[in-house]
């Protein structure tokens, strides 16, 4: 009797979960399934095939886009991890003012289109010719806000006595920072860096405005493909990208779990 009661209690909630996950995953599964369809149109079924994967890996636009994206993502992740970590520690130690804290996190909140056109205007004013580095710098500014947020959250739980002990024992500020502060923040810095990297990989709007004509990033290549209608090549690309993201999410999950339990 009790069993039936619990079942009755749980069921509507499970139904809700089922519907939400169906909504989230049906488009993705359909997209992946169609990437193995031999037909030219994603709407006509014609047997299992790897044809579109072969088209994809021979598409130089896609390969160039991928290389560009990896350059931008790697560069902006390194820069934003360093700047964001320094900023988070600095804000944690010296700044109580909420205005300055808000300013540091603002790039994450400003609508991307506003940041995009603003940066375009800035680059135009300074006559900076657009290329990969203009996208890279633009990506640093919003990635940094995410790194700062993640590292700051972690700082709230760190032990300040460890740092004081280190300084009392005669270590310089720099040595203390490198040997005590950074290692104790390592999981948060890594999580922030991973977040920065994935955000940059996927970022389209800001890249769209700050990109040079000869150096499109992968999202920009995808945009030009998607705009000109449906081709199963996009499905193949989507499937590969999803596999990469899913693996990354799982690795990230594994990495951050122990630190959460501390």
């Amino acid at each position, binding site marked *: 009797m009790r069993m039936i009661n619990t079942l009755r209690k749980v069921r509507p909630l499970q139904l809700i979960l089922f519907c939400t996950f169906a909504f*989230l995953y049906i488009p993705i599964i*359909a997209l992946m399934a169609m990437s193995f369809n031999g037909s030219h149109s994603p709407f006509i079924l014609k047997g299992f095939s790897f044809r579109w994967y072969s088209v994809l890996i021979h598409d130089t636009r896609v390969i160039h886009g991928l290389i560009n994206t990896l350059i931008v993502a790697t560069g902006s992740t390194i820069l934003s991890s360093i*700047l964001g970590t320094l900023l988070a520690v*600095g804000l944690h130690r010296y700044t109580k003012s909420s205005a300055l804290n808000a300013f540091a996190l603002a790039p994450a909140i400003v609508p991307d289109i506003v*940041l995009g*056109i603003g940066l375009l205007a800035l680059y135009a004013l300074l006559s900076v010719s657009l290329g990969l580095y203009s996208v890279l710098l633009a990506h640093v500014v919003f990635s940094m806000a995410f790194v*700062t947020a993640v590292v700051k959250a972690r700082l709230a739980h760190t032990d300040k006595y460890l740092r004081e002990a280190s300084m009392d024992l005669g270590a310089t500020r720099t040595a203390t920072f490198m040997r005590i502060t950074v290692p104790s923040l390592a999981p948060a810095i890594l999580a922030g860096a991973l977040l920065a990297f994935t955000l940059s990989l996927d970022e389209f709007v800001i890249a769209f405005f700050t990109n040079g004509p000869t150096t499109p990033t992968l999202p920009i290549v995808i945009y030009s493909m*998607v705009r000109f209608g449906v081709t199963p090549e996009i499905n193949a690309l989507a499937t590969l990208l999803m596999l990469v993201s*899913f693996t990354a999410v*799982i690795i990230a999950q594994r990495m951050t779990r122990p630190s959460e339990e501390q």
Partner: protein
Amino acid sequence: MTSTIPTRVSRDSEKRRDLLERMVLQGPGLLFITIFMATPITLVAIYSIFQRGRFGGIVYKATTENFTRALDPVYLGVLTDSLKIAGITTILAIAIGYPTAYAIAKLPTKWRSIALVLVVMPFWTNFLIRTYSWIMLFNREGLLNHALLKFNIIHTPLDLLYTQSAVVVGLLYGYLPLMILPLYASIERLDPQLGEAAANLGATRTRAFFSLTLPLTASGLIAGSIFVFIPSLGNFIVPELLGGGKTVMVGNLIRDQFLKARDWPFGSVLALSVIALVFIFFMLQNAVEKRFSSDAHD
């Protein structure tokens, strides 16, 4: 480093070192944000009061023309449409996200983290590709029409694509995880004993929800709404891909002013209007949060 006499000199040098440390830590980041965020937004604000040049560019002669032009019914209509679409998307995200977050919080611990990963995963997939997947579903020859025709639910294919509803679905699909996660965080923190106490004191479930659960989860609700509303409002990808030429949102307009019409001053005014709307939304949220938190403490 013998600490014999704590003189004023050493305290002063300590202070000076603190200042130096603060500058080394905060300086680079804050300088970067000043150059790459504050300056661009200031530029947009400045450009909004100038005239456009004949071949693009800016003519530095002050005018209010850009602002009066934004009040033209055509552009005002696009702004209100954008607000409406972003608003409906946010409301739907709450309607779906709240029960989902609640259901996840009620799962056994082991299943909870799996459910959360499943919520996050689509979000790490390229936004353009996720939007594109709805073209495949909504197309006249798409999977949805295919299924509906096959099961004789409809007899002629429906025009699902290139409608405002398609845009709302696309935005909802894109940003739903951003609603579920903060909601889950705030629901999970709720003390289950509070609900029992309310029931013992004779509160109905509805009453308990509105006077207890809702105020206590207001912060998650507000964070989720911000995360859904802001990117929806400025979005130009979804209206372009799923709305066709028919549904134009303010994001499309801004993009076109900057890249096609090359009327930067007018584009700047439109961008400022987005910032203003976002700001108003924040103020509203702030007011709501204050009310709810004071209710919860009463």
